[in-house]
């Protein structure tokens, strides 16, 4: 835990009045929400909604124009060791001369400080994370020789190796087959049971209500934030995704099936 003041009642994430812009064009505007600990939260919104930007600004990778993001009740610097980040897979060059184990070991670097080298314990932790994502047989492979879904799992294993309390994952299911997606979501649910908080950027509205118990809907502004049962409604979806009719009809059916209340607009 961060310090004595942190209890399970402290929100995992508190974003206040967050505005971010690229070259003076705002991408996030006055975003304000709070997510409790122990949730598996879906961050949802159309392409270009600012989902990646939200995570990057929380992780201090892009500058905020205004507002702040507090993790476990404080700024990122105070809890950095407890926060883990999975970037979008396309953010790195996979032809890099590194093995799967090399990359997963990077998850341990944050705890090592300036001069210490990874020890046996770090290597063992990395190997056990590789086992969790089913990639142990691939540990010595060069990362270029993996499929897209396997590369995605390498990133996941690296995040697991950080042994954090809060996880931010940018599209961990992109390019992953159905069986792997199921395995990963089971892993994430297990992490939630252990009291960890996991944020996942996700695109598939069909699977979302089954995966997440909390959702944040975003489209430059915050559209909705709350428990899935409360916010996964046709009205919110319409406001988030605009008038893409076919999609909304599908989700309308889905809502009926799931017995979630399709609020009348």
């Amino acid at each position: 835990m961060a310090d004595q003041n942190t209890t399970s009642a402290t929100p995992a994430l508190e974003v206040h009045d967050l505005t971010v812009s690229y070259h003076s064009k705002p991408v996030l505007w006055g975003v304000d929400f709070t997510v409790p600990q122990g949730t598996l939260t879906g961050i949802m919104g159309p392409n270009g909604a600012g989902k990646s930007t939200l995570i990057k600004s929380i992780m201090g990778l892009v500058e905020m124009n205004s507002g702040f993001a507090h993790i476990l009740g404080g700024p990122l610097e105070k809890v950095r060791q407890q926060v883990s980040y999975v970037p979008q897979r396309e953010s790195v060059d996979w032809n890099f001369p590194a093995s799967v184990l090399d990359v997963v070991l990077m998850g341990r670097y944050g705890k090592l400080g300036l001069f210490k080298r990874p020890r046996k314990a770090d290597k063992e932790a990395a190997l056990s994370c590789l086992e969790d994502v089913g990639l142990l047989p691939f540990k010595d492979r060069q990362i270029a020789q993996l499929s897209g879904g396997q590369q995605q799992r390498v990133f996941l294993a690296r995040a697991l190796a950080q042994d954090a309390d809060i996880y931010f994952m940018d599209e961990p299911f992109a390019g992953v087959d159905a069986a792997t997606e199921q395995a990963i979501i089971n892993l994430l649910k297990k992490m939630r049971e252990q009291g960890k908080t996991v944020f996942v950027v996700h695109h598939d509205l069909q699977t979302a209500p089954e995966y997440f118990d909390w959702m944040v809907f975003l489209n430059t502004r915050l559209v909705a934030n709350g428990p899935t049962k409360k916010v996964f409604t046709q009205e919110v979806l319409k406001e988030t995704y605009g008038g893409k009719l076919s999609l909304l009809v599908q989700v309308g059916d889905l809502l009926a099936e799931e017995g979630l209340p399709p609020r009348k607009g």
Partner: protein
Amino acid sequence: MTLIAGDYWSMLAGCLVAIPCAILGCYLVLRRMVMIGDAISHAVLPGIVLAFMLTDKMDTLPLLIGAGSLGMLTTFLIEFLHRKVRLQEDASIGVTFTWLFAIGVILVSTFVSNVHIDQECVLYGDLVNIPFDLMEIGGKEMGPVAIWTLGLVNLCVLAFVWIFYRQLFITTFDPSFAVAIGISATLWHYALMGAVSMVSVASFESVGAILVVAFLVAPAATAYLLTDNFKLMLGLSVLFGIASAILGYLLAISLNSSAAGGMVTVAGGIFGLVFVLSPRYGMFSKKLRTLFKVA
């Protein structure tokens, strides 16, 4: 062809240029920053000249400081033009270093006239004369000054990449993740460019400002084609660097031409040979595609 003692000093100097260049070159190639390396190796020139004008000597320390600050200035200007002014990166690089280099050339040709520093030497290096500038301590000859300078630079670069291996590795592969876990990508970017500046200034006397970039790129690019393992890539690039320096020097004496020119020709030749003969062609063509995206 007979070699005299001086030739061995020159070859050694060539190797001592090739080794740190090859090592730093691996990082530049993987970071797609080869052209920034090129820019720095040119832009240190005004720093060298200013240091010389202020102290009136070719002392190592002022030179390293002068070149180091110019290297930082170059890195900063390129970043500034690219990120804040939003000029394309190649345009930012081009505009920055040609300008600084031109200032250096003007400074050399108008204000400085000295056996140690003239236009010719600055542009093309002077490997052959290295053995004649000897270090003396208490009246005792200790070998060429350049060997001592280059040796020191080699030690610094080796220590740098040895001690900070992890930081350089992670900020090269995934700078965003590095920043997220508290390892500053900017800090290590500048540290690396500082090292490149230092190596450039130590090398310019031997191989000249124009050809330093060849020592930065060719051995590293050759090694990149041959291995999937980063540590092995570092090792192979050093081997290719040394081979280019020695074989290139021999080629140059047998043709009675520029030593640095010979070395770069051989370095290019080795790259070509590996490119054609590599046994693992599949991997190869894939890597070439990334490599050419770099240039």
